[in-house]
């Protein structure tokens, strides 16, 4: 796949925690995650809040906390990313749009943190560029002089977006860009993300809001209990029959406009031996209880379900 910008292969992220005294416990948050983002493409990862999706963004940028461990490979333009490589690329070629203003320095004016640490002789150029980008995303000039606490929700989002785009990155990782925004600001965010893709950038959108994913993404990856269970084209989400995994189907049917259909069952808390959806699955068979399905390609759709490996064999 020559035009893949970002490739994530079999990535697992776990944390070592102290439970009692010196007893350690390993908490697995993301298991065996694989996906790719092409140039000019928006790929969304959809999962419930608190399920650990943001950690993937942190892993790509190499900013996981010290007790976090990331296995598997992440490559950018075919080159495997090591921690050193990530540090070199981030901020230049790969940029993060963080979740909230809490990621900004509260004691620094917006303008100063947007341009970052630059040499004195380059500062003028950087400031000019910053002004252009701020203007492009509809931020008034005086916003540069504000401190983060003075920004409204919508303004803060624009600041985060334009700060990420100052260095003209090839890949943008947007982590929950829409929470707590009213409909008008959400629509604006959606347009901004689409515009990035039109400019040829790759976008990895991490969200729990299904509508945002549907309106912006080309492909949507469904995240369940730490696993990506299905990666399907966004247009297929308009027709439940084109979706493969039973959880994806019930997710779409549970939307208020699609009938608000009740499906019982909760996501398992602990790592299970078999399929993570086994307990709630309507089409399970014996093999699902103790064997974990792999994410496989089924006519261009990635699916993690034993019912589809049979067809392949």
């Amino acid at each position: 796949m020559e035009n893949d910008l970002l490739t994530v292969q079999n990535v697992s992220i776990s944390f070592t925690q102290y439970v009692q005294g010196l007893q350690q416990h390993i908490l697995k948050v993301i298991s065996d995650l694989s996906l790719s983002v092409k140039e000019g493409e928006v790929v969304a990862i959809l999962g419930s809040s608190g399920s650990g999706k943001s950690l993937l963004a942190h892993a790509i940028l190499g900013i996981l906390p010290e007790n976090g461990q990331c296995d598997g490979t992440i490559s950018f333009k075919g080159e495997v990313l090591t921690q050193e490589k990530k540090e070199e690329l981030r901020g230049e070629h790969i940029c993060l749009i963080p979740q909230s203003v809490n990621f900004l320095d509260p004691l620094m004016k917006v303008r100063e943190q947007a341009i970052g640490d630059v040499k004195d002789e380059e500062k003028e150029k950087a400031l000019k560029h910053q002004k252009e980008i701020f203007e492009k995303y509809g931020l008034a000039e005086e916003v540069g002089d504000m401190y983060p606490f003075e920004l409204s929700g919508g303004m803060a989002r624009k600041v985060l977006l334009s700060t990420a785009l100052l260095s003209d990155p090839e890949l943008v990782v947007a982590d929950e860009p829409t929470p707590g925004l009213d409909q008008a600001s959400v629509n604006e965010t959606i347009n901004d993300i689409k515009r990035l893709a039109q400019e040829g950038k790759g976008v990895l959108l991490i969200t729990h809001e299904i509508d945002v994913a549907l309106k912006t993404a080309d492909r949507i990856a469904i995240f369940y209990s730490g696993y990506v269970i299905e990666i399907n084209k966004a247009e297929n989400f308009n027709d439940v029959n084109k979706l493969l995994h039973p959880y994806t189907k019930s997710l779409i049917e549970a939307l208020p406009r699609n009938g608000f259909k009740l499906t019982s069952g909760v996501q398992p808390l602990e790592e299970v031996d078999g399929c993570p959806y086994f307990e709630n699955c309507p089409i399970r068979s014996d093999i699902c209880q103790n064997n974990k399905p792999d994410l496989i390609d089924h006519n261009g759709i990635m699916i993690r379900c034993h019912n589809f490996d049979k067809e392949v064999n």
Partner: protein
Amino acid sequence: MYLNANNISYAYKKNKPILKNLSISIPDNKVIGLMGDSGSGKSTLCKVISGYIKNYTGTVTLDNNLIETKDFYPIQLIFQHPEKTMNPKWKMHKVLSESWNPPQELMDTFGLKDNWLGRWPNELSGGELQRFSILRALNPKTKFIIADEISTMLDAVTQVQIWDALLDYCKQNKIGILAVSHDKELLEVIADDILLFNEINKL
């Protein structure tokens, strides 16, 4: 039974009211939806009605009687972020029994697993915690539920589960609900009537 809030006004800053002459009436057999933009004061209204904010002007009454504040407060607020409403150093069984001990049947309806009770709040997800915070609010003395964006941060499947169980219980036990959300599609499904916040708030 009717819950009435009459001519409520409230200001965080002097001369900058956020609620003005707002009146709302909720019958105990209905779900009233309330829609509004973020920052418009919906949550402030919720806190006034459920007794968290006291220095407002106007009255909150149940069948024209003022509410006794020394007893269990019959109007219970359920917040958007359950993790912020629980003592992080209490295990879940204590969090729940602070209010009451619900029968096993009801715990099953809300999908509460027995092994969750021995966990700390930070070991459960938002959806799981929200089930606790709803069940905790459904004490037999509760007459009205104020649901402030209770399913905004949940996935669609959990959202249905939670609302289904809550609506069912409230219908059976004659508990009225004020459901606050910015999600029009959701309110159209769950509510009997929908009010627009900006229309009832006479700023």
